């Protein structure tokens, strides 16, 4: 993954080889924002974040300042026992999509900026502990936390938590469930984490890019932050561009940049483009070249039929079958159901199968009708948004590529379905280790071939 020399607000330190060390961070003025913000009243930080209407960068786009105020308010309401226990801050870096790489990049290259955001958010909501949740090896993160502790920069203890692999395990209620000693499985809301989270106390869950931005807003002020971006979406965002582009990677761009510009920045298309998947697995398809003029803001992308999501663009070439791509992603998402909710557990595999038949087989009008039925049957019927997001992607494919659907219904699978998939999807689960595999084979179980 590469990073350009675009505006470099969040990523301004990436030019330095040792950007992850505390020395470099302090030398580049890192601690100033923290010192300035710690002099403010706790609610002033949230107010500044509100003033620039910073939206969460984890995918849902919930206003970050409002979330901080809700948690702070819930903490105040919770009474005397609670005031001794305090609230919790969770920095969410558990990005599960192969199409996104920004969280990993931030943690490995500028952990101190994220940790500043963690400390500031903790101060703003009256937290007494913080966790950084990540899927991967935390890398220099542990070292960063220790060096900050030595320098006395952590107001609250910060702990790194490794989240088990799985698409839904990075979901905010799943992180809470994990920290409370259960498996990383989403929970039914309400109560939301902001009301009852870690150890049943109000908990603030923010994506690491959101926290990095909070640190920058505290340091430079709202006016500086607004210099980049557009009026309804100020600031910059980390966008992961993959698919058939010359230089796939994470790019920092001002919000409001057009999709075409971002793709050009990533070296442009390497093949004749067909469409772009905006927003990742929970996003939507936009056809090119028309989508090239759509600007990157939550509102504009939704209006166009995509999503900003965690800042993901996947370029799909003419030589790939969009239905096949959608079917493969849907199949992966179906495999990631935590198995807690009946409609998701039963509906997503059925939807994946129906889409697979549409893309790779002969579905017929009945098949298309059943696929559409399934979209309605899974939407909004899970505890988390896995069924909604999956149905959204499938529905977007059926709408955007209606002509393609018709061709598949009339003539069967197109020759392009044989192309290697463009949208990156995690490989199926690793087969059981040899000993167990033999045991499974001995029983004649299907495990051996899985």
């Amino acid at each position: 993954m590469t990073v350009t020399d675009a505006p470099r607000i969040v990523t301004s330190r990436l030019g330095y080889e040792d950007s992850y060390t505390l020395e470099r961070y302090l030398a580049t003025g890192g601690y100033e924002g923290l010192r300035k913000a710690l002099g403010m009243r706790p609610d002033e930080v949230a107010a500044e974040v509100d003033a620039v209407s910073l939206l969460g960068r984890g995918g849902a786009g919930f206003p970050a300042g409002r979330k901080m105020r809700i948690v702070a308010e819930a903490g105040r309401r919770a009474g005397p026992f609670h005031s001794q226990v305090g609230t919790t801050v969770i920095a969410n870096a558990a990005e599960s999509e192969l199409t996104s790489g920004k969280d990993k990049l931030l943690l490995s290259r500028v952990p101190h900026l994220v940790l500043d955001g963690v400390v500031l958010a903790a101060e703003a909501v009256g937290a007494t502990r913080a966790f950084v949740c990540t899927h991967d090896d935390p890398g220099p993160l542990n070292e960063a936390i220790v060096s900050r502790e030595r320098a006395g920069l952590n107001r609250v203890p910060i702990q790194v938590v490794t989240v088990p692999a799985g698409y839904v395990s990075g979901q905010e209620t799943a992180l809470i469930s994990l920290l409370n000693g259960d498996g990383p499985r989403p929970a039914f809301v309400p109560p939301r984490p902001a009301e009852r989270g870690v150890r049943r106390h109000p908990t603030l869950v923010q994506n690491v890019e959101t926290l990095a931005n909070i640190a920058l807003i505290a340091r430079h002020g709202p006016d500086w932050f607004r210099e980049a971006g557009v009026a309804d979406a100020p600031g910059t965002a980390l966008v992961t561009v993959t698919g058939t582009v010359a230089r796939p990677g994470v790019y920092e761009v001002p919000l409001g940049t057009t999709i075409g510009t971002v793709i050009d920045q990533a070296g442009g298309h390497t093949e004749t483009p067909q469409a772009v998947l905006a927003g990742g697995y929970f996003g939507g398809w936009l056809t090119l070249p028309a989508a090239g003029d759509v600007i990157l803001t939550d509102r504009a992308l939704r209006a166009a039929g995509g999503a900003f999501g965690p800042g993901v663009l996947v370029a799909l070439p003419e030589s790939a079958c969009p239905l096949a791509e959608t079917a493969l992603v849907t199949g992966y998402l179906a495999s990631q159901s935590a198995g807690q909710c009946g409609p998701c557990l039963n509906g997503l595999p059925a939807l994946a199968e129906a889409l697979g038949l549409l893309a790779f087989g002969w579905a017929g009008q009945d098949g298309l009708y059943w696929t559409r039925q399934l979209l309605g049957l899974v939407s909004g019927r899970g505890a988390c948004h896995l069924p909604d997001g999956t149905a959204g992607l499938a529905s977007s494919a059926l709408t955007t590529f209606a002509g393609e659907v018709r061709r598949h219904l009339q003539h069967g699978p197109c020759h392009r379905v044989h192309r290697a998939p463009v949208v990156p999807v995690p490989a199926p689960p690793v087969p059981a280790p040899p000993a167990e595999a033999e045991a499974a084979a001995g029983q004649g179980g299907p495990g051996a071939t899985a």
Partner: protein
Amino acid sequence: MSRRPEPPHELKVNPIACQSHGMCMELLPELITPDPWGYPLIAPGPVPDELLGLARRAVNSCPTLALLLTRSPEPASEPTPDVAADASSPPARPAGPGA
């Protein structure tokens, strides 16, 4: 907690708790129908006053306490964006054109 204009009653299912016992569909077929897998599909919108009694009975009969009768306007779908935010969950967005 002060309630001002008394928001209407709504039925909700906790999909994690629901084990598709089907009691609710027996007791309140007017509003609750089974999906292809036997899980309850709730008619959208508020519970009409004349069905409130039956709705309460259905709620009380659920063996896993998965059926909820709420008055708080906790949005099951679009209207107000809620604190749902996080990495893997977009707001309840994708519409089901399956309807």
